[in-house]
C-alpha cells in the first residue's frame, strides 16, 4: 500500500505494518475467510436438516469419516454453536469494525492514520490469537463447544452434561475473552481517532454517516463488551476453580452429582443477563456501521444529499442508547418476572422507532434522485428491502405473548438472518464494491457485481423466507432432526427447499470470489474519485499512500453536497477544491 514510500519487503508491508489501511485489509482477509468458514458449517447444518442422519457426500468423508460420514447429534450441536460464533464474533463484527472501521475512519475524517497505530496492529494480532483458540476447539477431546453461541449454563459449565462442555467450552470462552480484548483496543482506537483527529473544519455535523455508524458502534463496544468479558471470567472461574456463580444447588446429571462442582447456589439466569447485556448491543454493532455504508452509497449513487442528516444521526445515537436497555427481550420465557417482561417489551418496541425513521429517510434520499444502479447501489437497495423484513419480524418477537410461542422457533432464525445476512452482509458487499477502487486502485467488474447481487438476493430470500413458516408452525431451532414430531411432518418439503436454496446461495458466492481475483489482475484502473463522490477519502490517491493525503485538507462543507444547487458539477467535495 505504501506507494509514496521506498518499496519495503513483503513482511514489512503486509504483515508487520502499522498502517491502518494494511491492518484494515488484514482484518478483511481474516474475517472474510471466517465468513466463508461459517458458511460452510451452515451448509453441513442444512444437509442434516433436509436429510437427517444420511451420509453426506465428500464433506462427510472428510469431517465425519469416523461416524460413517453421518452427522452425529453431538456434531450437529457443535455445528450451529460454532457457526453462530464464527459468524457473529469472527466474521461480521470484525468485517465492520475491524476491516472497514480501520480502513475508512482515518480517511473519512481526514487523519493520516489511527490514533494509536501500534495498538491497532496489536489488536489485529490478538484477533488472530483468538481465531487460533476458536479453531483449537475442534481438535480437543469431546469436540468443539456445543451449548449454542449463547452458551447457557449449566449445560455449558458441566462437562458431564454435554461432550463439548469440557475442553471445547473452555477454549470457546478463552477465545471470546481474548477477542474481547482485541475488540476493545480497536474500539478505543476508533473513538479516539474520531474525537481527536478530525481534519480542520470537519465538525461533528459534517461527519459522513459511515463514520457516525462506526463511531457509535465502537462506543457501544466499549460500554457493553467488558460486561460480557466479566461474565466470561465468572464462567471460567466456575470451570477452573469450582466457584458457583452459575451453578444452582442440588444438580443431578443423569442422576449423579456432576464433578468439578465446588460452591453452589448460583443462578443460571445471571449468565443470560450478562450475555445479553452485551450480545443485544452487539447486534446493533452489527448493523449501525452497515446502515452508515448504505446511507453513503445511496446518496452518492442517487446524486442527492442524504435526506434528514440530523435525524439520521440522532437515530443512530438513540438506537445505541436504547440498545443497552432491551437485552431482556431474549429472556421473555426464561422466568423473567411479569413487570420485567413488560418493561423490556416497551423498550424493545421503542427502539423500532429510530430504525423506522432511518428506513423512511433512506427512501426519501433516493426519491427523485438520478439513480446510478451500480453494483454497490444494488446491494445497498437490497439492504434496505431486507432490513425492513427482518425488522418487521422483530415486532412479532417484541410482543411478549407472541414471543412466548415464537421464542426458540425458526421464526427467530429467520428474523436475524434477514437482518444480518440479508442486511449486513449485503451492505458489506456493497461497501466492498464502493471502496474497493480506493483500496486497490482497481474497480470490481460492475456487470459481474450486479449479477452477484441479484442472484444472492433471490437465493437468500429462498433460504430465509420459508423459515418464517417453519417458525410459525412451531418448529424449534437447534433441533438436529425435526421429523421427531408429527407436528412438523408437513414441514419436511420446506426444509429441503431451504437447503437446496442455501446450496445455491453458497455456490453463487463464487461469482464474488472470481470478481475479486479478476479485478486484482485486470480490474479497470481508477482515478482518485471514480464515483464523483464528496467525502474525503476520494480526495486521496487510489490507493492512498502512507499518511493518506498528499495535500493538507480544509473541510468546507458537509458530506452530502449533491444535486443542482452545489456548483458547476453535481457534487461538491468536502475538501477545498484542488490547489
Amino acid at each position: 500500500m505504501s506507494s509514496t514510500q521506498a518499496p519495503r519487503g513483503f513482511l514489512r508491508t503486509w504483515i508487520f505494518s502499522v498502517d491502518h489501511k494494511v491492518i484494515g485489509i488484514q482484518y478483511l482477509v481474516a474475517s472474510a475467510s471466517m465468513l466463508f468458514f461459517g458458511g460452510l458449517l451452515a451448509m453441513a447444518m442444512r444437509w442434516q436438516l433436509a436429510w437427517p442422519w444420511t451420509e453426506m457426500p465428500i464433506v462427510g468423508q472428510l469431517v465425519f469419516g469416523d461416524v460413517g460420514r453421518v452427522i452425529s447429534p453431538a456434531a450437529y450441536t457443535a455445528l450451529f454453536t460454532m457457526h453462530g460464533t464464527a459468524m457473529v464474533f469472527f466474521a461480521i463484527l470484525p468485517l465492520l469494525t475491524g476491516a472497514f472501521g480501520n480502513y475508512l475512519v482515518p480517511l473519512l475524517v481526514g487523519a493520516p492514520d489511527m490514533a494509536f497505530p501500534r495498538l491497532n496492529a496489536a489488536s489485529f494480532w490478538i484477533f488472530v490469537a483468538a481465531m487460533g483458540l476458536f479453531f483449537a476447539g475442534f481438535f480437543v477431546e469431546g469436540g468443539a463447544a456445543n451449548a449454542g453461541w449463547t452458551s447457557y449454563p449449566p449445560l455449558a459449565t458441566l462437562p458431564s452434561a454435554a461432550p463439548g462442555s469440557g475442553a471445547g467450552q473452555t477454549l470457546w470462552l478463552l477465545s471470546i475473552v481474548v477477542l474481547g480484548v482485541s475488540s476493545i483496543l480497536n474500539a478505543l482506537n476508533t473513538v479516539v481517532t474520531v474525537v481527536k483527529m478530525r481534519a480542520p473544519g470537519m465538525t461533528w455535523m459534517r461527519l459522513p454517516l459511515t463514520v457516525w455508524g462506526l463511531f457509535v458502534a465502537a462506543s457501544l463496544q466499549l460500554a457493553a463488551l467488558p460486561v460480557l468479558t466479566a461474565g466470561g471470567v465468572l464462567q471460567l472461574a466456575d470451570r477452573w476453580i469450582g466457584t458457583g456463580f452459575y451453578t444452582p444447588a442440588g444438580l443431578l446429571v443423569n442422576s449423579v452429582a456432576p464433578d468439578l462442582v465446588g460452591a453452589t447456589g448460583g443462578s443460571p439466569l445471571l449468565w443470560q443477563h450478562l450475555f445479553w447485556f452485551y450480545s443485544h448491543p452487539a447486534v446493533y454493532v452489527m448493523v449501525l456501521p452497515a446502515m452508515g455504508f448504505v446511507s453513503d452509497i445511496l446518496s452518492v449513487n442517487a446524486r442527492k444529499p442524504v435526506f434528514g442528516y440530523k435525524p439520521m444521526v440522532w437515530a443512530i445515537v438513540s438506537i445505541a442508547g436504547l440498545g443497552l436497555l432491551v437485552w431482556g427481550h431474549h429472556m421473555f420465557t426464561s422466568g423473567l418476572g411479569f413487570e420485567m417482561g413488560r418493561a423490556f417489551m416497551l423498550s424493545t418496541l421503542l427502539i423500532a422507532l429510530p430504525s423506522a425513521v432511518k428506513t423512511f429517510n433512506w427512501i426519501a434520499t433516493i426519491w427523485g434522485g438520478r439513480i446510478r444502479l451500480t453494483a454497490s447501489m444494488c446491494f445497498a437497495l437490497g439492504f434496505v428491502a431486507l432490513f425492513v423484513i427482518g425488522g418487521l419480524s422483530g415486532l412479532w418477537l417484541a410482543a411478549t405473548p407472541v414471543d412466548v410461542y415464537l421464542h426458540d422457533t425458526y421464526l427467530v432464525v429467520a428474523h436475524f438472518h434477514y437482518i444480518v445476512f440479508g442486511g449486513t452482509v449485503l451492505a458489506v458487499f456493497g461497501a466492498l464494491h464502493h471502496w474497493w477502487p480506493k483500496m486497490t486502485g482497481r474497480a470490481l467488474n460492475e456487470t459481474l457485481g450486479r449479477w452477484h447481487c441479484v442472484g444472492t438476493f433471490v437465493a437468500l430470500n429462498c433460504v430465509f423466507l420459508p423459515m418464517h413458516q417453519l417458525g410459525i408452525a412451531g418448529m424449534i431451532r437447534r433441533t438436529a432432526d425435526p421429523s421427531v414430531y408429527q407436528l412438523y411432518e408437513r414441514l419436511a418439503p420446506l426444509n429441503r427447499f431451504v437447503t437446496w436454496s442455501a446450496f445455491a446461495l453458497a455456490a453463487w458466492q463464487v461469482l464474488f470470489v472470481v470478481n475479486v481475483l479478476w479485478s486484482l489482475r485486470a480490474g479497470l484502473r481508477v482515478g482518485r474519485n471514480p464515483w464523483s463522490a464528496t467525502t474525503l477519502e476520494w480526495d486521496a490517491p487510489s490507493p492512498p499512500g502512507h499518511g493518506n493525503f498528499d495535500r493538507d485538507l480544509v473541510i468546507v462543507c458537509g458530506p452530502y453536497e449533491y444535486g443542482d444547487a452545489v456548483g458547476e458539477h453535481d457534487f461538491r467535495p468536502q475538501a477545498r477544491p484542488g490547489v
Partner: protein
Amino acid sequence: MTTAPLPFDSTLDTPRAGHVAVAWDSGPPVATARFGTWVFLASEAFFFGGLVAAYVVLRSSSTTWIEPLDERLGVLLTALLVASSLCAGRAVRRLRAGSRSGASGWLLLAAVCALAFLGVQAFEWHELAQAGFTPRSTLAGSAFYVLTGAHGLHVLVGVLWLAGSGLVVRRAGKSTLHVELAALYQHFVDLVWLFLVVLLYWL
C-alpha cells in the same frame, strides 16, 4: 437500461506538490494519549460494573451469605492503596515542578505501597483459606475471591507501571507522559477499591 458509464473523474488526479509527510511514526500527540487512557478506564469501569452487578444480584437473592472478613484488614488495605495513589499524584506534581528525581522517588514509593497492598491481601487470602473460606466453599467465597482477585491483578499492573516509569523518568529528555498516565491509572484502581471495600467489608 444500464447505468451511465461511471464518470471516472481525472480532474483531481494530477499529482500535487507538497506531499505532507506526516511525522506519525513518532507516536500520537500527548492530548490524544491522555484522552485514550480516559476512554480505556471508562471501559474498565464497565468491566468492574459487570462484576459488581453480578455480586449484588447473587448476594441479594441469597439467604446464607456470610463473609468472615476482618474490617481492620479492610482499613489497612484501603490506607495502603490510597497512600499509593497519593504518592503517584505527588510524583506528577514534582514533575510539573521540574524535578525528575523527586518524581521518580514518589513513583517508587507509590509502587511500594501498592506492592504492600498485594502482600496484605495475599496474607488475608491465606488466613481466610485456613479458616475454610475458599472460592469452592460458598458462593460468598466465590464472589469475594473473584472480585478481589480481578482487582488485585489490576493493582499488579499498577505496580509494574509505576515502578517502570519511576525508573525511566530519571533519564532526562525522556517523555514524561507515562508518569501522568500511570498516576491516572493508579487513581482509577484506587477508586474501584473504595467501592469494593465498602461492598465487601461494610455492607
